């Protein structure tokens, strides 16, 4: 399969690989996918008091398009408010990376990951209050 330049770039030089401290009440973790399906994404965000995403990290087990989708997502969410980040759609990711139809599910997984991370940090902050 031929990959787009952007997929290759994110695959070769993934942005924001790593982990954030899950015990931090300001860190939200979204873990989506399943090993048996061939892709698992872990996306983590850290938000400040104003609900702005200050940092984002990911690790992904999956094909090149899944890695690129999650890498791109970490770039996009930094500096956005939680509210704003919920508006990211899989189609935006797929369009930006030029994903072929068989790889659309990778961008869907990335959208699921950010939604799960946002839900997680909101829940943790409510519990902390």
């Amino acid at each position, binding site marked *: 399969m031929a990959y787009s330049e952007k997929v290759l770039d994110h695959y070769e030089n993934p942005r924001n690989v790593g982990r954030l401290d899950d015990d931090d009440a300001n860190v939200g973790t979204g873990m989506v996918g399943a090993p048996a399906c*061939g892709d698992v994404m872990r996306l983590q965000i850290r938000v400040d008091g104003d609900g702005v995403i200050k940092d984002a990290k990911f690790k992904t087990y999956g094909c090149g398009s899944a890695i690129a989708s999650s890498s791109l997502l970490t770039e996009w969410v930094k500096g956005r408010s939680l509210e704003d980040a919920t508006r990211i759609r899989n189609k935006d990711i797929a369009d930006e990376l030029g994903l072929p139809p068989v790889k659309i599910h990778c961008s869907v997984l990335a959208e699921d990951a950010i939604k799960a991370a946002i839900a997680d940090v909101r829940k943790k902050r409510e519990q902390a209050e």
Partner: protein
Amino acid sequence: MQLPIYLDYAATTPVDPRVASAMAECLTIEANFGNPASRSHQFGWKAEEAVENARRNVADLVNCDPREIVWTSGATEADNLALKGAAHFYHRKGKHIITSRIEHKAVLDSCRQLEREGYEVTYLDPDSNGLISPETVEQALRPDTILVSLMHVNNEIGVINDIEAIGEVTRRRKVVFHVDAAQSAGKLEIDLERMQVDLMSFTAHKLYGPKGIGALYVRRKPRVRIEPQIHGGGHERGMRSGTLATHQIVGMGEAYRIAREEMREEARRTLALREQLLRGLEDVEEVYVNGDLTRRAPGNLNISFNFVEGESLMMALRELALSSGSACTSASLEPSYVLRALGRNDELAHSSLRISIGRFTTAEDIDYAIERIRHAVAKLRELSPLWDMYKDGVDLDQVQWAAH
């Protein structure tokens, strides 16, 4: 060393230069271009002679009578002809067929077609090493079983079925035994005088011959009958009509002649390269070899790197041409049905590479491949949340995954 390095000999092989030049002698006006079926002039006679010479070369490699070799367009057609041909001929004796879950699609899809026609098919499960034992076959036999079809060497994991022992079972029970030898001919010794196989499929392009030509062995003593699937001019004793492709046939004959002369030396050499490859990879953490390592064709290594997905691994290995059992590399988005049939979890199927070594592979190629693979696996594990979890001592089987 030339990049990319070809390590996918189980998919196809380059044509040996000696084969290519033999083929080139059968095309133009100055050369042997005639129709082997033309009986009225020397162009035809000369082409027929070349075809019969090739037939003898194929027969000699597997120790059978040249009259038992029927040319086809490849192993897929040979498998179709064997299964449908035998099933259609013997349907009055019964309508039960036995095969295995890890056969090539040419066999499995022919079986599906026969099921639609009212035949019943038993799909045997291999053991965890990918092998089908003679006992498993014997237990599945029924009074109405007419045909057993099993591959000699599996195309994905390279394991070798004991077709000699299975042939004793099927012969005793008077059931036709078909073997797909696409991956084994010219790599392992095949002696059809000794092995009680009734039908055997061959191809040229896995053995440094051209694509588009193969053959079906059809035993004469005891005689095995098949219904033709392609009708026409009555070529190949009526079993497969169609003008014989002299250049393709000559290419296959030359490839099989070379194999007969060189296979022992070549098997020794490719096995040494595979051992070199395995030695270079086996100390990587969480590495699993898929399929039996001792009963295995010399050039094949199928290996899983846990917590790394196969397609991304291949993406990191663009200088190496190889295959993966990962879902993402298949049109169906399903992981390899062969690896799944071994009872391994799906993750290991997603994480697998098939590396197949052949005539033009060098020790330098293998060293380079080892270095690249180790580097890529390390890089992708750094990216893998599963690797983190494994390192943290999390049992991944206990995690509730959201399947999608």
